[in-house]
């Protein structure tokens, strides 16, 4: 019984950390696509396929994370506490961030299913909420994770956060560059 209980506890911790890393990887691939990265061997449809798969894999590990917490007896969670933000017996606010992130990710997955029926600009704006999912997952991991202050966990969090931020800054600078060029051309025509 002790071994089984420990296994669920480790599965909960590992599943959560891995779900965060997979969300990070999915965000990184998404940023590469939207940043118009010219990857000769990787056309957009192939990157999109991998991007989608990473999101699904992240969802699977979120289920592992939640399921293991449900089965584990060390920190007894009920299904309601795992689904309703702020009702957890352990660090309610920190856990709530994770619950909101998971539910937002599920909602975004639903919008992906209806992508072709939605106006593209609307889907694209809603899809930006994936950054919120990623940020919430990061803060949830750092504040609720029992491994958050270990060296290996801090390295994983710092490495993934640096990569996402670097690509995000690059992406935003591309937008600003395009906007500045458009403005300059408009002025030349006037």
């Amino acid at each position: 019984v002790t071994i089984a209980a420990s296994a669920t506890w480790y599965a909960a911790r590992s599943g959560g950390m891995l779900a965060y890393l997979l969300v990070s990887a999915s965000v990184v691939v998404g940023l590469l696509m939207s940043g118009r990265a010219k990857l000769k061997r990787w056309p957009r449809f192939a990157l999109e396929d991998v991007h989608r798969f990473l999101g699904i894999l992240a969802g699977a590990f979120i289920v592992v994370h939640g399921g293991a917490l449900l089965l584990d007896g060390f920190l007894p969670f009920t299904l309601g506490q795992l689904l309703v933000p702020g009702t957890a017996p352990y660090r309610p606010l920190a856990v709530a961030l994770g619950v909101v992130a998971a539910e937002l990710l599920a909602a975004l997955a639903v919008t992906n299913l209806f992508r072709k029926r939605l106006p593209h600009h609307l889907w694209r704006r809603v899809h930006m909420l994936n950054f919120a999912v990623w940020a919430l997952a990061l803060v949830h991991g750092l504040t609720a994770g029992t491994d958050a202050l270990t060296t290996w966990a801090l390295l994983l969090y710092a490495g993934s956060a640096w990569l996402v931020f670097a690509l995000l800054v690059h992406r935003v600078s591309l937008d600003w560059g395009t906007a500045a060029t458009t403005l300059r051309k408009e002025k030349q025509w006037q």
Partner: protein
Amino acid sequence: VTPPTSRTQAARRRAVAAKRTAATAAAAGFLAIALLARGSDPGQASPAASGSNAGSSVTSQEQDDFSLDPGSLTQSSGSTPSAKTSVS
């Protein structure tokens, strides 16, 4: 002789390979992180593990005191009634 494949087919194969690699890496990562988490627990650390992570053992103990102690969990969610009881 194999027929020449288009760039699209090649890209599709690369995507399939990348997805397979991601799934395998995720499974391996799951086990690796579980082992790292196990190594972080002071009660679970084997002599070999504590030898390789001698520097982090103190941090691990502090971490577990911080996160797993039921007393600290109760405090963080606000347990004034028990304090009042002990005073009266």
